[in-house]
C-alpha cells in the first residue's frame, strides 16, 4: 500500500480544496506557528477512523469543520479524501477498482456523517478493513503527534503492549 494523495476541504483551517501529494521517501512539512501543519496530521487521523474529538485537539466533532476567519464565513461540511495505491487486488476489486482506492469521510454541522470508498457509501468498519494489518489503526505508533513523543516512553506497560498487538 502507498499513500498517493490527500484532499482536504472545510477541515479545520483548510477551507479551500487542498491537494497534498505523497511522493516516496521523506516529505518535510514546514511553516510558521499556527499555519496549519498539525491540522494535516489531524486530517489523516480522522480519515483513518478517529472517533474521539479530543484526539483531534477539539472538544466536539464540530471543531473539525472550518469555523471561519477574518474574511470568510464558517463552512458547514468537512471533507477529507485519501487516495491509496498498490492495494491488495482482491480488496480493490471489492470496490470496483484495480489497485487504487479513494477513501472519503464527510461530516456536516447537522451531524450527518458519511464514509465512502470509491464514491460508494460504506461503513467505518469497511475503512478499517482496508487498513487491517498495516499497523495504521488508531492506536498506531506510526503517527506521533506534536509533543507526544515523550508520552511513548512514559506510558504504562499495558499501553506499550497495545503497540505490540498492533504489530503482531
Amino acid at each position: 500500500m502507498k499513500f498517493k494523495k490527500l484532499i482536504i476541504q472545510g477541515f479545520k483551517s483548510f477551507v479551500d480544496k487542498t491537494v497534498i501529494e505523497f511522493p516516496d521517501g521523506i516529505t518535510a512539512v514546514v511553516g510558521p506557528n499556527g499555519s496549519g501543519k498539525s491540522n494535516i496530521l489531524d486530517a489523516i487521523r480522522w480519515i483513518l477512523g478517529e472517533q474521539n474529538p479530543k484526539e483531534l485537539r477539539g472538544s466536539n466533532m464540530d471543531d473539525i469543520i472550518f469555523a471561519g476567519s477574518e474574511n470568510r464565513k464558517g463552512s458547514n461540511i468537512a471533507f477529507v479524501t485519501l487516495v491509496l495505491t498498490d492495494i491488495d487486488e482482491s480488496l480493490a476489486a471489492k470496490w470496483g477498482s484495480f489497485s487504487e482506492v479513494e477513501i472519503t469521510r464527510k461530516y456536516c454541522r447537522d451531524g450527518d456523517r458519511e464514509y465512502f470508498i470509491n464514491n460508494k457509501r460504506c461503513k467505518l468498519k469497511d475503512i478499517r478493513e482496508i487498513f487491517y494489518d498495516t499497523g495504521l489503526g488508531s492506536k498506531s505508533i506510526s503517527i506521533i503527534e506534536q509533543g507526544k513523543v515523550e508520552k511513548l516512553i512514559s506510558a504504562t506497560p499495558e499501553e506499550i503492549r497495545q503497540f505490540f498487538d498492533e504489530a503482531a
Partner: protein
Amino acid sequence: TAESFYDTFQSIKKNFKDIFKILFGGEGRSDITLTDEGDILNTGVEIFVQPPGKRLQNMTLLSGGEKAMTAAVLLFAMFLHKPSPFCFLDEIDAPLDDANIGRFCSILKDMSKKAQFVIITHNQKTMEVADQLYGVTMQEPGVSKVISVKFEN
C-alpha cells in the same frame, strides 16, 4: 494468538537493541521485557535504556532529548519488524541537539526506503534530509494553503 505475540515481541526486542546502539552510539545498555511472562495474553511490556557512560536507575530520570531518542528507537524497532506503509511525525526532533538530529536523520533516510515518511519540522538539518518539501502558509489570515517548495539541489 499468544504465539504470534511472543514471536513479534522477540523480533522487536532484538531490533530495539540493535537500533539503540546506532542512535545512542557506544556502550550503553537497553532491553525490552515482559511484566508477566507466564500470561502472554495479558502481560505488559517494559522498556529499559541506560545511555553510554551512565548508571541509570530509573527511566523517569532520562533527559528530554534522551526520552525522544528512546521513543525513536522503539518506533524504528517496530518498523523494522513490520513496516507500516506510512509514518507521520510531528516535530519529534524539537528536543534533540545537533548530534542526535544527525543520527536520527540518517536512520530516517534508511527507513524511508521501506515506507513513506512525512515529518513536520522547524529544523534546518531535518529539512535537508527530505526528498520533497511542502510549505504551509496563511497568507490570507486564518486560511491554510500548501505550496510545494522546489529544491535547488
